[in-house]
């Protein structure tokens, strides 16, 4: 099996929102960052993959299992952190350990205890008294303590301070040292994804705008800072996004479509996403 996730034409309609014909592939051993603004369809995609929502059209498979079938066996191998942590507030670490140990066949109390120590989570404090960052770390500890092959993380780093985000990033990088481990990580904080992801997908208003290897993406596009007059001379087909400022113009362009020798700066994933979204809105 080469792909941890395969999505073909996945569609789901809600009043006022639709995820339209999503096609996405996550190769095994890789990290895919799903970038999109709030309400772009990231959570819907993850819930569809887990069978929590029924698609209106399209197909998808997770670790080789069709999402239309019984996903219980494959969910044993998936660690999930949702944007809303879902644990009763009175639970302490020991009780969570007992509950999850009864739900997951591969649950390891030893791994869970080690993760709590590594993530600096208290064992005697009720979950409801945790900060948002601690709750997310607890979610991650639970997701990892049953030895998953795939992590599905929905906004797992949003609302966390930089230090905690760095801890989480380290944990994810450790997880993917095993070549059989994969991660689908959705976020609207692009800088986090830029650090860890092998592949980047842009989701905007329920539609996939782009999916590409991060390194290809970074090398394919460049930032051109020029005057308005110079900007008019650039082939419009080469321009992915444009911002006019009082001092000139900032263009994101395809490197292979501008004249050789044009001085281009590097472009960040965040800039690329924002430029593409704004260009589509024009």
């Amino acid at each position, binding site marked *: 099996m080469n792909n941890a996730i395969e999505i073909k034409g996945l569609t789901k309609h809600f009043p006022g929102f639709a995820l339209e014909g999503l096609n996405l592939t996550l190769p095994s051993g890789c990290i895919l960052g799903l970038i999109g603004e709030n309400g772009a369809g990231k959570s819907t995609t993850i819930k569809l993959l887990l069978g929590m*929502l*029924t698609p209106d059209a399209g197909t998808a498979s997770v670790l080789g299992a069709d999402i239309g079938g*019984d996903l*219980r066996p494959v*969910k044993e191998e998936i660690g999930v952190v949702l944007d809303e942590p*879902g644990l009763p507030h*009175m639970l302490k670490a020991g009780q969570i350990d007992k509950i*999850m140990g*009864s*739900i997951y066949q591969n649950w390891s109390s030893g791994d869970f205890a080690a993760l709590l120590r590594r993530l600096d989570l208290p064992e005697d404090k009720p979950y409801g008294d945790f900060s948002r960052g601690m709750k997310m770390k607890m979610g991650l500890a639970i997701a990892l303590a049953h030895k998953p092959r795939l992590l599905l993380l929905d906004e797992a780093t949003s609302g966390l301070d930089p230090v905690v985000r760095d801890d989480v990033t380290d944990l994810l990088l450790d997880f993917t040292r095993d070549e059989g481990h994969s991660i689908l990580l959705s976020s609207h904080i692009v800088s986090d994804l830029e650090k860890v992801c092998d592949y980047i997908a842009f989701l905007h208003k329920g539609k996939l705008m782009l999916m590409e290897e991060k390194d290809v993406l970074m090398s394919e596009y460049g930032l051109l800072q020029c005057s308005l007059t110079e900007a008019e001379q650039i082939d419009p087909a080469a321009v992915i996004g444009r911002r006019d400022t009082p001092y000139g113009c900032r263009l994101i362009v395809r490197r292979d479509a501008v004249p050789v020798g044009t001085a281009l700066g590097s472009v960040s994933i965040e800039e690329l996403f924002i430029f593409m979204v704004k260009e589509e809105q024009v």
Partner: protein
Amino acid sequence: MKGLFLKDFYVAKKNLRTFLIMILAFSLGSLAVRDSGNFFLCYGIVMMPGITMSLISYDERYHWDTYAGAMPLNREQMVTEKYLLHLVMVLVWLPVLLVLQHFQQVPAFGGAPLTLLVAGLNLGLLLPGILLPIIFALGTEKGRAGYYVVLFGGMILATVSEELTSLTGYVPEAVAGILLFLLPAAVYGLSWRIAIRLYEKRNL
């Protein structure tokens, strides 16, 4: 499913103490009163659906229902756990009622244990049997409307009960007794299957 029972045990232990204290207080109170013995004795079993509904409500409040959807559990297990939990509570409480009835100053239901069992089963299983599928389909917030519909239906039934009682004359007493035992079991069993079907269709 053991993990689900364990989770509900921890939630009930912390959040539903008031329910448990009320049930105990009214049940023990049934030993002290001469009048309204039926009411005091049955109060506990009438309150039990409240415990089950509250546990579902806490699941929604903590977003546990969504989180559980990501675990190796299916919808049937999630629904079945709540139905089993409620059934166990009712079945464990019925012998307690019989003991209490024995020690009442004026035994409830004329001191007839079978009548008490029939009343206990019907009170304990019929209301959740009707309400739980609505709540599993719509959630506790929207499903609250169902509670009022059931309450209104119950009031109408109480109003016409005299006419219904006159019909029982046509049914042999033994048959009526068996029917009254079977009715709550049948409604509860059917309700369980319907709730599973409805919950499987719900978006988490």
